[in-house]
């Protein structure tokens, strides 16, 4: 296929209305799989987290994971959906080696949650309501690794390896209704929706929602209709969109590509496309001839899911404060400007600061530690802030030690370094590195007297009422005690000794 014609974005939105739809798969962080007792941890040796059920062994049967159903209902409720009082799983039949039973147990026409919405806030504060069509439960497939061949794809590979650890891990698929009237903001709306959905699911504590690890995956459906015509175009479905930025780029690229096809007088092919991270473009995957026939039918090995109204209400009661509402509350409490708040959120610091405050630290100190020193350390180490090897509670303890005068700021940073280096808790690091502020007045007095004796002219000035001159003596004492003295106390002692 030749290189597609791409139309300038401004041109695209001048001539066409984009129709956007987003399908997001969220991998639940339940301890066990959707239909068996196998663990779900990411990154285990291939084929070590498997059993007869998730390997599709003859005779093995599924049993629904109650926690997964709970998570699905909570996600549905958080998205303002109605929860179906009765619904069955269905089998989606197709052959693929990474699917042990050659059917995927999913929900088809009886999803657990339907008809919800999510109000998405754009950068300038505009709110766009995204209607949710459905959220349903299903199981993940295994993973194929295609060996040999240049591309790592199945085409041209010499052989393929299969890892079934992921087979049967619970997934929730969240499908939006078509999002109309986004115009030039379609890419931004897409990114904002996925961002906000990620934050929402994360706040529920039901998934890691790590797009880089595949625990959250996004498919972008896009079509164009001639401006103002209301005539729906043919859509493409772009998969493999693995970051928030890619969501935005994929929408933008597809808009330009569709417009190119249409303005050349061609027709858009209904197909699955793959997003290429490096080039920011999409390439054609398999063509959907009309629609693939999955021969869905109700799963006879499972009984229907019938959540009682009492259970649903009980779960509604467990919903946390919505992340964006929480942010508004926090910024009011801490007196943050919108910009400051956004910086904290973008740096991934907000939750950490809040947890540090919850552990007893004053908001100002907590903020300053995470935004300044700890952000530097994270940047140096090249890891996200939240992955630093220090907990909010530990940061709160360091702040407490500073407030009580047991540490000064310089020592506190050394304590933090020790914790980050895996030397233990702040108290353990203080102990093992011997970082306590010298608060023994006896030792300090000796050091003060020595410094005063060494600089008699300065001592004279202080005695004469020039208190500002004490700075030089403080510096000398600090140097002599290798920074472990409490500077404030040193100053007090100097005044006393010269009094």
């Amino acid at each position, binding site marked *: 296929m030749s290189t597609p014609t791409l139309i300038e974005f401004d041109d695209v939105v001048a001539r066409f209305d984009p129709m956007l739809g987003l399908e997001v798969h969220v991998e639940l962080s339940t301890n066990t799989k959707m239909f068996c007792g196998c663990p779900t941890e990411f990154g285990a040796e291939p084929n070590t987290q498997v059993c*007869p059920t998730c*390997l*599709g*062994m*003859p*005779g*093995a*049967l*599924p*049993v*629904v994971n109650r926690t997964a159903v709970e998570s699905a209902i909570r996600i549905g409720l958080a998205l303002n959906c109605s929860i179906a009082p009765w619904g069955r799983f269905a*089998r989606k*039949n197709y*052959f693929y*080696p990474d699917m*042990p*039973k*050659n*059917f995927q147990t999913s929900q088809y026409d009886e999803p657990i949650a339907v008809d919800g919405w999510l109000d998405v806030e754009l950068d300038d504060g505009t709110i766009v309501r995204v209607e949710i069509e459905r959220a349903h439960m299903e199981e993940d497939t295994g993973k194929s690794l295609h060996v040999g061949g240049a591309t790592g794809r199945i085409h041209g590979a010499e052989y*393929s390896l*299969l890892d079934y650890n992921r087979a049967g891990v619970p997934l929730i698929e969240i499908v939006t209704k078509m999002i109309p009237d986004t115009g030039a903001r379609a890419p931004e709306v897409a990114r904002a929706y996925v961002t906000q959905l990620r934050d929402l699911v994360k706040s529920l504590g039901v998934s890691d929602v790590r797009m880089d690890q595949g625990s959250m995956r996004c498919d972008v459906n896009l079509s164009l209709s001639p401006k103002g015509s209301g005539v729906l175009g043919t859509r493409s479905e772009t998969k493999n969109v693995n970051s928030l930025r890619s969501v935005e780029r994929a929408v933008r690229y597809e808009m330009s590509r569709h417009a190119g096809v249409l303005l050349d007088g061609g027709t858009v092919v209904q197909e699955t496309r793959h997003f290429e991270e490096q080039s920011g473009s999409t390439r054609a995957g398999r063509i959907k001839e009309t*629609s693939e*026939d999955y*021969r*869905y*039918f109700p799963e*006879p*090995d*499972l*009984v229907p899911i019938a959540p009682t109204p009492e259970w649903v209400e009980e779960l509604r009661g467990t919903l946390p404060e919505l992340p964006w509402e929480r942010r508004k509350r926090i910024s009011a409490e801490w007196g943050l400007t919108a910009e400051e708040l956004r910086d904290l959120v973008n740096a991934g610091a907000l939750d950490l600061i809040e947890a540090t405050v919850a552990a007893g630290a004053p908001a100002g100190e907590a903020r300053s530690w995470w935004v300044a020193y700890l952000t530097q350390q994270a940047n140096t180490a090249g890891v996200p802030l939240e992955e630093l090897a220090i907990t909010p509670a530990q940061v709160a303890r360091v702040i407490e030690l500073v407030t009580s005068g047991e540490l000064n700021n310089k020592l506190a940073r050394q304590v933090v370094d020790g914790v980050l280096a895996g030397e233990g808790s702040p108290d353990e690091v203080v102990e093992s590195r011997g970082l306590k502020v010298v608060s023994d007045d006896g030792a300090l007095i000796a050091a003060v007297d020595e410094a005063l004796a060494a600089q008699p002219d300065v001592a004279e000035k202080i005695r004469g009422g020039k208190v500002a001159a004490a700075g030089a003596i403080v510096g000398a004492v600090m140097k002599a005690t290798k920074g472990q003295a409490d500077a404030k106390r040193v100053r007090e002692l100097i005044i006393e000794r010269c009094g």
Partner: protein
Amino acid sequence: MSSDLTRLDAATLAEKIHSREVSAVEAAQAHLDRIAAVEGDVHAFLHVAGESALESAALVDASIAAGTAPASPLAGVPLALKDVFATIDMPTTCGSRILEGWRPPYDATLTSRLRAAGITILGKTNMDEFAMGSSTEYSAYGPTHNPWALDRIAGGSGGGSAAALAAFEAPLAIGTDTGGSIRQPAAVTGTVGVKPTYGGVSRYGLVACASSLDQGGPCARTVLDAALLHEVIAGHDPLDSTSIDAPVPAVVEAARLGATGDLSGLRVGVVRELGGEGYQPGVRASFDAALRRLEKLGAEVVEVSCPHFEYGLAAYYLILPSEVSSNLARFDAMRYGLRVEKGASAEEVMAATREAGFGPEVKRRIILGTYALSSGYYDAYYGQAQKVRTLISRDFAAAFAQVDVLVSPTAPTTAFPIGEKIDDPLAMYLNDLATIPTNLAGVAGMSVPSGLAEEDGLPVGLQIMAPALGEAVMYRVGAAFEAARNADESGPLIARIPELEVAAR
């Protein structure tokens, strides 16, 4: 000595073992000897596990010698297990080439319960491939022969289990019943077979034919033996979502009560739609005699109508293949079983393996089911069939509002000659006309020997059907009928089976 032990019913044999009159090892050995002697003619087994059977029996003996109470009323009694249940120590082939030699990494729940009960598993029995068939001729490993007449079929799909009982190779067996695969073989071999209420016996480890219809159940030569085995295998299993979480009906007590021979106050319904045209004269005669016998026992026999039963066969042959087409998709050479290395891609290997590994009946049903579930056809086929299923359930509900049990002949004919219907699927399917409605509705059914057909001298079965979890009344009627028949005919029907020629071997 040996031959005597093989003629005993399970209850009697268990008593002798538990009182140490006979050892479990002797009982196992007697049956293994019998298997060695007659298998060449009968071919009831696909795998005989002599060594593990003797080991398991020895454990029972040791435990009894140590004064421990037997693990169950059937501890030490040998059993033949249909080759559709997963066994960790024996191959599990389902009568198919595609699973030739496959050893499951786990035991079915039913298998575990048999082991825990101290029952000696002699081996795995022959069956139509993946339980699809009514004659065991669709086994990839050759047909089972009916011990009553070796040129005849032993029924199917559980022909191996039924023939093992009739040939005295085992006093107990396990079958599975999707549309009659326990009851029809029982009928044509003069033995007892029970299809419990759907969900009564765990399906975990039962290799699925049609998930919504399959049900494991007991096979024996007497109603009491079937009841004893029923209580061992039934009961809730958290590994099977469709398993019923309710107490197991007290079927042993019911069978003992029934054997005292009084059915007064009980109402027995004759299903008008399961009789008449298409039923062999000798079958009809035996059934009529059975009704008179039930009346003599004090039961009130009335006719009831189940108008939608006539659509049962058609609905069954849409629902079953649909589920089959999906259940059997997993046999793709990627993880276990046969693998035919042909072509360069996974798809080609899958296709070649399935082409070589599945027999004609399995392929026919996969194709039927794939078609029935296809977009554009689903509503007309699968959807309509599900509606018929609902109507049949309502027919049962209405009938059971009037009567305690329903009766019919189990099968329209006696055992037919091997090869007679193999090329005529429709004729073969008609065998299950009377048994299919219970599977569609999930209710209980059993077949007990009712007599011999006059024209060919072969066994006929009486089917007794009861509401879901109504097994107690079904066993009671079955046991009463059995006792009365035995009294009138001076002994059990199975005693009239011709001796197999074993001397020459």
